[in-house]
Structure formats: C-alpha cells, structure tokens
C-alpha cells in the first residue's frame, strides 16, 4: 500500500504521484500477481494513468484490450488515447445499437466495428464490459486494463475474465456502487457474490494483490481535498496537488442587475454565497426549513439563481494551468434525481441560461468542472432513505470541482439525519464499506455550516 510519508520529510505532490505511478506500471507489467488494482480518489489522474499504462504496454509489443463500463467512457478513453498518441491505431468495438461517439471517431487512427475479428490485430481495442461479454472465438489478450473497475459488477468480470491473462484494474472506491434490481442476499458473504464490485471479488480470491493508491488529487483544491478525504476515504487518505492560494476564483462585481425572472433578494443571497465560495472554496445557501416534494420549486430557483448570477458577474479562475474565464462550459449543477435535474434545466432556461451541464450524480461520475452547484439530496425531505444516504452519491457531488462548490439546501438536514433510524443490516463475512453514509453526511454538513448564507 502506498502511504503518505510524514509531513516533515514530505516530497512534493508531484513526486509522490510519480512514484505511485511507477510502482503501478512495474506491477502491471512484471508483478508476481496477475492482477494489479489501483484505487484512485477523485481527480487523482486515473485517466492519465490508464493512457500512460496503455502506451507503455503497447510499446512492449503486446496487444491490449481495455474494458470500460459505459459507451461514453469508452469514447472518452479512445479520444484520450488518440490525442496522446495520434499514430496509435485504436479499435473501438461497439454494439449494433450503440454507435461510437463523434468524439472518438474524429481521429483518423480509430477504427470502429461491431465484430472483434475486424479489430483483433490492432494494438489497442476498447469496448464496454457489456460488449466484451459477447466476444467469443478469439485467443485471449495478454494484457487488459479495466477502467472504472469499482463500478463493474463481479458477474460482468466473470464473463470477460476469460479474454485476458493479466489485468490492471483502475477505479474510485468512493463512488457509487454497482447495484442489482433483485435481492442478492443469497450470495452475501461469498467471495464471489455476483452482485458486488468486481474489485471486491478479485481481491477476495487473490489475497496477494495489494491495492495501489494514487495519493494526490489534482482536481480538488486544497480547500476540498482534506474534507473529501476525511469524510469519504477515512482509511485511504489523499492530499491536494495544490497548496492553499494556488487556485483563485475571482468574480466580477455584483453590479449587473438581475434579469426579470430573478427576485432581487434571491439574487443578493446568491451573490453573497458566491463571494463566500470564491473566498473559501465552499458555500452553503440555506433556505428556510420546509417539507417539500422532490422538485422543490424554491430550491430549484435558488440553484438557478446561483448559476445565473455566476454567469452574469463573470470572473476568472487562476490555477497552475493558467487563467481562464468562468464560462458555462466550466460550470455544472448536480442533483440526486432526474426530475430535479429537469426542473433545474427548466428554471435555468427561464433565466436564459442553456449551456450549463445539469445532471444527476450517476452521470457526473468521472467529470470535472471549475465550479459546481449542488442541490443537496436531502433538501426538503421529511426523511432520508438508503438511496439518499449512499456515500457515493454525496461524494460524487462534492468532488467534481477545481475551485468551488456551492450547496443549496433547505435548513434542517442535521435534525432529519438525527431522526433517521440506524437499522442498517449487517451480513456476516461481508467486508464493511467505509465510510458510513449517515456519518459522512453529518461530517460534510458540519463543515459546510461554516460557509453558510441564509436565503429568505
């Protein structure tokens, strides 16, 4: 396991990360175990690692298969590979009802096909796990990379593992777990429980594999990494790649008048919370406590107001990458439910904002923005459910930003959490997943309270 050295003898984040990557590549290429596992916290350079590992493997003359979980992840990976090495021929294997995306196919070196035979001889072939499961009548690859391995189910790995001899598994253990639409208690506690994450099965059956860890988040600013690390990765901490003050968010003055659809008092609160967030990296815009339906119109309006004011005021981000204007493409809104996302889109459109990403936690996994605005999953609810308390959901929402994250919520969530029954069942023999969602929710809120702005 990669551990952080004591601060006294601290190497730079870059040195730490390089050392981790070197160890990972050595293990993947020549390690004594057939599998190498890499835990990657949010923004720790997982995709960079995958591209780097792929290129190193290809250099050795080996052909490589890459397994990702969704079609957009596959397209994304293909795009990154082709960008990193325009001369590399990459096969994009796809299903007949899922055509490859434009982003992947714009590169001349990329070949797409529904049949593996057409791509078999290319140095790299990329497809979803669902597509790989149907591949047959082919010799196994020597090397595979499995991306987002924590989101892959054990049974999917069972179906594709025959296709490779060695594999590098990369993923973020803190994000949303795979799930099943039926009960799976029959297999709880079995090493090979088909419904659990592929990595959990792999590690249970191969005790010699010790997961590597990417120790530095290059995405999260110094204001966010400690909170996210403590709350969501209690036993595998990581640090920010930048120091406090390395990232700056400078907003324009709050002078532009709000558009007709935006109440002045709400605009003022939005401005205030934006200032707080620009200063500290976090902002909590708290509406009066009230029980509401999921698509609470006032909370939705508040989310839209924050986004609209941010765009109206404009501003600049400064970071190790240089400076850039804060524009719609660098802002995202995260919600728990799809209907909430739809409601926010509607409210934004009414304010004339159309090109900001608004999506659920599930769809924001793996994405990165400068500023995120989050509708708290528990806002306005009379009670929590396992869905709302799932650690991965809050973790995804709180770890997409490079500069600042603003959470919009109704007051009263700590009390709601206090009243939540703690009756979580425990299966013997099942390794507990950390942290606890209830506790993590409290921890995050406790932190956010210091950056609170009340809206009336």
């Amino acid at each position, binding site marked *: 396991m990669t551990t*952080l050295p004591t601060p006294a003898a601290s190497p730079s984040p870059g040195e730490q990360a390089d050392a981790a990557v070197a160890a990972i590549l050595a293990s993947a290429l020549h390690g004594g175990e057939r599998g190498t596992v890499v835990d990657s916290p949010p923004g720790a350079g997982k995709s960079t690692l995958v591209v780097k590992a792929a290129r190193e493997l290809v250099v050795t003359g080996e052909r490589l298969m890459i397994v990702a979980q969704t079609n957009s992840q596959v397209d994304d990976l293909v795009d990154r590979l082709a960008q990193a090495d325009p001369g590399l021929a990459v096969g994009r294997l796809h299903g007949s009802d899922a055509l490859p995306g434009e982003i992947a196919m714009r590169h001349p070196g990329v070949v797409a096909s529904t049949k593996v035979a057409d791509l078999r001889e290319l140095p790299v072939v990329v497809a979803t796990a669902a597509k790989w499961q149907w591949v047959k009548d082919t010799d196994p690859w020597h090397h595979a990379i499995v991306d987002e391995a924590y989101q892959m189910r054990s049974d999917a790995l069972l179906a594709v593992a025959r296709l490779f001899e060695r594999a590098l598994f990369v993923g973020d253990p803190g994000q949303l777990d795979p799930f099943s639409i039926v009960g799976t208690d029959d297999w709880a506690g079995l090493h090979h429980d088909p419904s659990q994450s592929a990595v959990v099965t792999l590690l249970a059956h191969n005790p010699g594999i010790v997961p590597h860890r990417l120790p530095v988040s290059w995405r999260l600013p110094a204001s966010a990494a*400690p*909170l996210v690390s403590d709350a969501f990765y*209690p*036993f595998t901490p990581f640090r920010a790649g930048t120091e406090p003050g390395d990232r700056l968010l400078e907003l324009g003055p709050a002078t532009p008048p709000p558009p007709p659809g935006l109440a002045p008092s709400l605009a003022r609160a939005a401005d205030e919370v934006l200032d707080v967030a620009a200063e500290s990296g976090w902002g909590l815009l708290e509406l009066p406590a009230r029980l509401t339906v999921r698509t609470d119109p006032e909370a939705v309006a508040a989310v839209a107001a924050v986004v609209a004011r941010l765009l109206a005021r404009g501003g600049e981000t400064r970071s190790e990458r240089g400076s850039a204007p804060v524009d719609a493409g660098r802002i995202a809104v995260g919600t728990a439910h799809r209907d909430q996302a739809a409601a926010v889109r509607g409210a934004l459109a009414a304010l004339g904002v159309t090109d900001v990403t608004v999506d659920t936690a599930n769809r924001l996994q793996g994405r990165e923005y400068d500023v995120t605005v989050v509708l708290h999953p528990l806002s306005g609810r*009379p009670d929590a459910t396992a869905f709302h308390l799932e650690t991965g959901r809050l973790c995804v929402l709180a770890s997409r930003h490079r500069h600042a994250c603003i959470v919009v919520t109704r007051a009263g969530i700590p009390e709601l959490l206090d009243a939540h029954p*703690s*009756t979580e069942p*425990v299966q013997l023999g099942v390794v*507990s997943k950390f942290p606890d969602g209830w506790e993590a929710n409290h921890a995050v809120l406790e932190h956010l309270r210091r950056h609170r702005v009340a809206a009336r």
Partner: protein
Amino acid sequence: MDHSTHARVDQPLTPLETRLAALRGGAAARNMDARALAALAANPGCDRRAVLDAAGVDKAALATRLGSPATFGQSPFAITRGLVFERRLRAERCAELVALLRTELLPEATAQSPVEVPDLLPSEGPAVRAARTRVALAEATANAAAGRAWTLLDRPLLRLDVAGSTVSLEPDAIVIGPDGRWTVVEIKSFPILDGSADPTKVGAAARQAAVYVLALRTTAAALDAAAATAQIGPGLVHPRPGTGPAARPHPSGASADVPGADVPRAAAHAAADAVGSGLSPADATTPAAPRLPTAVGLPSAATSASAATPGAGAVAAGGTASGGPEAALPAGAAAHASPYAEPVGLAAAVRTTGLLVCPRDFSNVAVAAPLDLRKQLAVTRRQLARMTRIETLLAALPETVRLDEAPEAVDTLAHAYAPECLAACELAFHCRTQARAAGAVEVLGRGVRGELGSLTTVEAALEATAGDGALARAARLREEALAR
C-alpha cells in the same frame, strides 16, 4: 436477552436522577437492554422514547396501563433453549466460551494461559457493580501484561452517559486477552447457518456491541484519569493494536502505537479504594471525565494520556493546516477528526471488532464470528453526542408526575410514530392510535411521507388529488385505469 433491573440505588441522586426516579414511581430503573437499544436505533428522533428509556421506565407495563399492551413476548421454548445455550457456554468457568475466543481472537497465544473469571458481584446495586467492573478491567489488563492471562468478565455492568443521563449497560461478556486488549462478546440465540445469519439481527447485535465499546472507552478514560489523579503518570497502559486480527491500516500517521509503559495497578486500586472507602466511584473520576455528551466519544481529549501521544488520531480537516491532511488540531476544536480514528490511552485497548457467538447451523454448538464495529461506532458516537438532553425534553412534563399513577401524562411528550415502532417499541400500539387519530401519513410508512412532501395528513393529501400536482395526475391515471 436481559431484563434485569437494578435492585439498589446506593449513592446520592442528582436532581435529574431524582426526577427520573419519581417518573418511574419509585420502581427500579431498567437497564438499557437490547430492546431499548433497538428502539433507540429504530426511532432515534422520538422524544417520548428518549425520556422513558433514560428514566429506565418499564415501557411494557406502561403500555398495559395505557390499555394498549405490547405483543412482544418470548415463548418459554425459546427461553429454555436460549438458557441451555448460554449455560453451556458458561459451564465450568466459561470453558467453551474461552476455547472459542482463543481460536477466534489469538490463535497464536498459548492454549495454556490461565483464565480468570472474576466475581463481578452480580447481586449488588448498579453503582457497586459498575465500580467492580472497572476494577476488574484494570486488574485484568494488569494480569495480561504480567502473566499473559485471559480474563473473562461475565455480565459486567457499564455506565454510559446518554443525553445527559447515566444509563446502565450489561454486555454478555467482555474478554481481556493476553495481549491486553478488550473485546466485547455478544451471545445471541439466532443461528449462524452455513456461515451467514439474519442480517437484521446481526446489525442489531453490532449496534449493541458498539454501544458497549463506547461505554468501555469511557470506562478506560476514567481509569486513565484516576491514574492521573493518583499521581502515577499519564497514559500508562499501552494496548497493542496491530497484534490482534482486528488490526487494520490506520489513517496515515495516526497509528495508535504508543510507546511502552506499565499497567496502572494503582488506577485499579484507586477505584477499588473508592469503593472500599464508601466514596462514590463516579465522584472519584468525575473531575477528569466530565459528564458531557461530547465526552462520550472523545475520552482521549479529556485525559492527560493524550499529551503523551501528540497528534495521534487527530486528523485535521480545515484547509488552514499546512503540510497535508494530518496536522493535529487542539482538542475540542470544531474541526472533525476522523470518526474512525482510534482513541488514545487505555481506551485504545478496546477492540473495534466485536465477537458474535451463536449456535451453529441446526445444532446447539457455539460458533463465533467477528463483527467489524467501526461503522456502528462512528454512527453511535455522533448520535449520542447530538442527542437532545433529557432535561430539555423533561420540560414538557409536569414536575411531579408519576407514570405509574398517571400513565396518560406520557402523551405530553412528543412521539414520532412510524410503523417500524411496531417491531421495536412497547408503546407502538398506543402511539399508532394517536398517529391515526391525528390523520398522520406516517401510519402508512416512512416512505409514504417522502412521496407527499408538505402534505402531512391523509386528509390534506386526498384534498390535493383535486388540484393539479403530481397527486392529481396520479388520481386521474388511477381513475382512468380502473374505469376500463
């Protein structure tokens, strides 16, 4: 399951205790037993339950007096079977239990180490029993260091501050291994069948065990404090996390390995003397272990032992601390230390892995399974720290009320009925009747409430079907489908 009551109260009562005793009508206070802990887990937000359990009121009797008796009960067959199982485990100085613990906890330890099963004065009152348990813990830890001995504390009595009021807890057993570490043992009568057991029951057992771990940590902190008061130096006991099977990677830099020192025999003696001299043992430790809810989970901050182990376990979160994620914050700072960090001092002797002992398959043979309690500990700790204080809740009740004479006075305490109460709390039928009479949508289930948002009564929800919200659309669709 334990239903024992305190036979004696043998120390001066605090005003709160006096008030709670009056509430019981002078009856003995009940322990915070498995059922009370389950009720707490099922409905932590209920004021009514909080007061009744803090006061140790017999809720079953109260429910009967209110005319809505609970249906909980245990078949004599089940009781007999449970007793047979426990008797077997405890026979011959717990021989079978100890054998099981040996294999589970320290397979490498010599099978020949002696086993102590001290007398814990089970017929005494709670204060004496608690003091006796404390002494036994200290002695056992000393014995472990000196003679590599095992000690099994059979039904010890622990005290824990819950929302400002002290409750008594009686774990099935605590075992102190030759490594000096304390393990909570939960004996249950449900079976472990082919390696798995009813997850609901295991979950309840784990939460119960976590409460005991917290109580043990408090006790340990008190022992540390007593040692400090006795001028024998801080942080004398050094548990060795990392030697037992429960050892796990700690948050970086926060390894709780504390450099060696010897066992505080004197601490035990101090506590024992306190008992012997007629002094209240609680008083003896009060100065360093304030009875504040926050002290429950953070015993280390209050003890001088923390001074000997700078920074261990404290993980700063604020972006202000430089040098990466783990810089120590001053004790009591508002920042969140990792809720999973191990405490320091003697409290670290308590293992965060409990042991569940159950009958195996269809037999009466015992089998043990480890329970990782770290999650339950983190949750329970925060839960206890955030509880509304009982004094505050009591304000709703008339000063002199006795529930044995005026059971209906309980209605002045707010309830938070949900159908889950039916399986967890003796008062459920009574509260259900009230919730139904009020037309509360909770009677249809907690999930229903989530669907309905601000509509909290059945009537309001039905009225909303005439409007044009989601409920109205649902009503139209339902009507259309049923018309076909």
